[in-house]
């Protein structure tokens, strides 16, 4: 195999303990593991010592892109791997924006960040050098928007750069703090923001501009056009361009799969006013895209707000909304007021929190408050009530300030809070990670439980549940287990290339093998599946090394109490599927 782009193999190491950096070329690593998540799990396993404190200098962050980045459309994502401060084991988060393009154009396949700085810094990464800038003046700044603007005005080449930054949530080490990139895109899940905060990295800017060598130019252009046309003509892509991911609100609510009020219900009577259709009609101000994605699924609401104390004084904010945010900060908190929902989303974006975890944590707190497990002594006077977005905004401000023991505990996640105050049965997290917005049936929750990052995106269980609902087909537990695991294994390939999961219908094994061939990879569809399996096992090994015990999983009872699209989940069958998957994984 002769892979044509030598710069893909370059791994940039940055050691913040010494403010040193160096580059190592690792062609074998990229041949064997392709790129993205495959390469990153190897680098993380090598560099992160066993039992590392996720918020200590010994933790390691790996950013990785793949061979298709910049070369083909929809290969728009960067993978970040780290040890998660939320789950205590593997942290994996993906983001789009311009991050993937910038890393490839700067001439790196992966970036490894280790150690920790004592003073706040900005990392300025280019092809031939890394600069460390003092970020003391930005530390503690209220808004991630402002930080983005300042960095944008001072560093990098406009148009060809990525600007990643954390908010105060990351500085305060909230275990589910996010990293904002290019505004509106995020490494949202599993607390990468807190890991950056622990290393005192306020922002990372990456810039570059170069060409990539390919094996067969003519074939490349033709294949590119084929994929591009498939993308712009596909109905799935049209759906995501038109209404974006919020197109799913109404259909999921109709099949009773939209988690509502801390999953005490799977149907939200107020869904209409927080639906994709409603938000588009009343607020949609602009659609934007990640670099190299013709779809443009990012939807920005224009929210015009009057100042209450001064007549004719208005502000208009652009606020990015997506399905998961509508679920976690909308239905899960009983909020049907669209303006209130948008304000809550804006608060999350400003502070740099993961929207999903924050919403689910607040949902747990609301139920705990209603049940008397916590009182106004803990909430500092806040009467947490479903639908009351103003109080939730206040709660987020306390979460950032952490003025008492209760908010300090909330900052650790819903499971940690429930262990202290009670209510574990309705603390909706899996492996410590708060659940995503799919109560479609058993397959979805199995994915949350056993997926290597406890995300709905791991095994695609939400999709299998819905497919079975449509066809009425009944599958034995063993078959469900097989399908979920093989989907997760294939998704390791997609996130090693790295393509957006929305394009999974386009990047079939056949097309994927073809694209890789134009870059000098000589892999069959079977080879790819085998590599996917290997990457998945490597991740599981890392998880287990760091204390994840698949035989001691906590399953929140609530998921068995509230009917899904398929009715109540049969616990016995659920556990059977779990056993089958663990047997198949065989570690």
């Amino acid at each position, binding site marked *: 195999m002769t892979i044509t782009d030598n710069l893909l193999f370059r791994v940039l190491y940055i050691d913040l303990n010494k403010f040193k950096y160096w580059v190592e070329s690792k062609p074998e690593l990229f041949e064997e593991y392709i790129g993205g998540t495959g390469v990153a799990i190897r680098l993380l396993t090598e560099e992160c010592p066993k039992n590392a404190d996720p918020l200590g200098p010994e933790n390691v962050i790996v950013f990785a892109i793949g061979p298709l980045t910049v070369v083909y459309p929809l290969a728009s994502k960067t993978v970040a791997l780290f040890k998660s401060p939320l789950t205590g084991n593997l942290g994996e988060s993906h983001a789009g924006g311009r991050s993937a393009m910038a890393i490839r154009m700067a001439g790196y396949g992966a970036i490894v960040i280790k150690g920790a700085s004592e003073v706040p810094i900005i990392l300025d990464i280019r092809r031939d050098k890394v600069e460390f800038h003092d970020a003391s003046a930005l530390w503690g700044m209220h808004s991630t928007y402002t930080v983005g603007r300042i960095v944008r005005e001072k560093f990098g080449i406009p148009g060809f750069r990525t600007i990643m930054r954390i908010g105060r949530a990351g500085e305060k080490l909230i275990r589910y703090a996010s990293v904002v990139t290019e505004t*509106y895109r995020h490494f949202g899940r599993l607390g990468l923001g807190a890991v950056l905060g622990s290393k005192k990295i306020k922002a990372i800017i990456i810039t570059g501009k170069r060409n990539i060598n390919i094996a067969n130019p003519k074939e490349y252009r033709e294949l590119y056009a084929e994929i591009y046309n498939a993308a*712009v003509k596909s109905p799935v892509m049209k759906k995501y361009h038109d209404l974006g991911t919020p197109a799913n609100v109404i259909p999921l609510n109709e099949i009773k799969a939209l988690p509502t009020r801390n999953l005490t219900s799977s149907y939200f009577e107020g869904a209409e006013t927080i639906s994709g259709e409603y938000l588009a009609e009343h607020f949609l101000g602009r659609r934007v*895209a990640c670099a190299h994605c013709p779809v443009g699924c990012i939807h920005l609401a224009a929210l015009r707000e009057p100042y209450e104390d001064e007549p004719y004084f208005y502000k208009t904010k652009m606020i990015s909304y997506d399905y998961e945010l509508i679920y976690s900060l909308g239905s899960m908190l009983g909020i049907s007021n669209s303006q209130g929902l948008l304000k809550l989303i804006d608060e999350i974006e400003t502070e740099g929190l993961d929207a999903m975890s924050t919403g689910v944590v607040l949902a747990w707190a609301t139920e705990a408050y209603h049940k008397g497990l916590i009182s106004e002594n803990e909430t500092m006077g806040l009467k947490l009530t479903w639908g009351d977005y103003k109080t939730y905004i206040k709660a987020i401000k306390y979460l950032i300030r952490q003025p008492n023991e209760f908010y300090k505990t909330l900052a650790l996640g819903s499971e940690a809070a429930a262990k202290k105050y009670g209510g574990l049965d309705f603390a909706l997290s899996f492996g410590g990670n708060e659940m995503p917005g799919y109560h479609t049936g058993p397959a979805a929750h199995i994915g949350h439980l056993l997926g290597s990052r406890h995300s709905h995106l791991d095994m695609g269980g939400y999709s299998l549940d819905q497919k079975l609902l449509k066809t009425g087909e009944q599958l034995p537990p063993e078959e469900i287990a097989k399908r979920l695991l093989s989907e997760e294994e294939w998704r390791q390939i997609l996130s090693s290339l790295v393509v957006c999961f929305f394009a999974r219908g386009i990047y079939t094994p056949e097309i994927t093998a073809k694209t890789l061939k134009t870059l000098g990879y000589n892999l069959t569809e079977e080879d790819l599946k085998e590599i996917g399996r290997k990457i998945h096992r490597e991740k599981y090994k890392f998880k287990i090394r760091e204390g994840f015990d698949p035989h001691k999983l906590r399953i929140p009872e609530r998921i068995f109490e509230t009917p899904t699209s398929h009715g109540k989940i049969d616990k016995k069958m659920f556990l059977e599927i779990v056993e089958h998957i663990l047997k198949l994984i065989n570690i």
Partner: protein
Amino acid sequence: MKKSKRLAVIDVDKCVGCLSCVFACTRRYSIPGLTKSAIEIKSAGGIERGFVVVVCRACPDPPCAKVCPTNALVKRQGGGVILNQNKCIGCGLCVDACPIGAVFWDDELNKPVICIHCGYCVDFCPHGVLALEEVEIT
């Protein structure tokens, strides 16, 4: 009447910033990347404000040609300029002369990148921001 073509930005407000046009421009040479691109998409001061398309607007009396010391840039019929690579000494005066920033730079060749108004990018603009317009040659 003789006619020529020029690349036109029809509606910048429909731009989603996907950069498909920018990648298409370098791909004219069957190369993935950015260095041969004569078009650029920037945010208009943050993505919340939308995007700016920076590309040669085919001026009838182009300032880049006026400052070229070796006559490597000559006026193109229909507006804009044509670059003669062999005459170009890579001084970069053309870059400074273009008030809209539409003369780009190829670091590998150390020469400017000039839009030839071929319209290849138009085929890869998914939302109708760009078009190839007919212009009359006067």
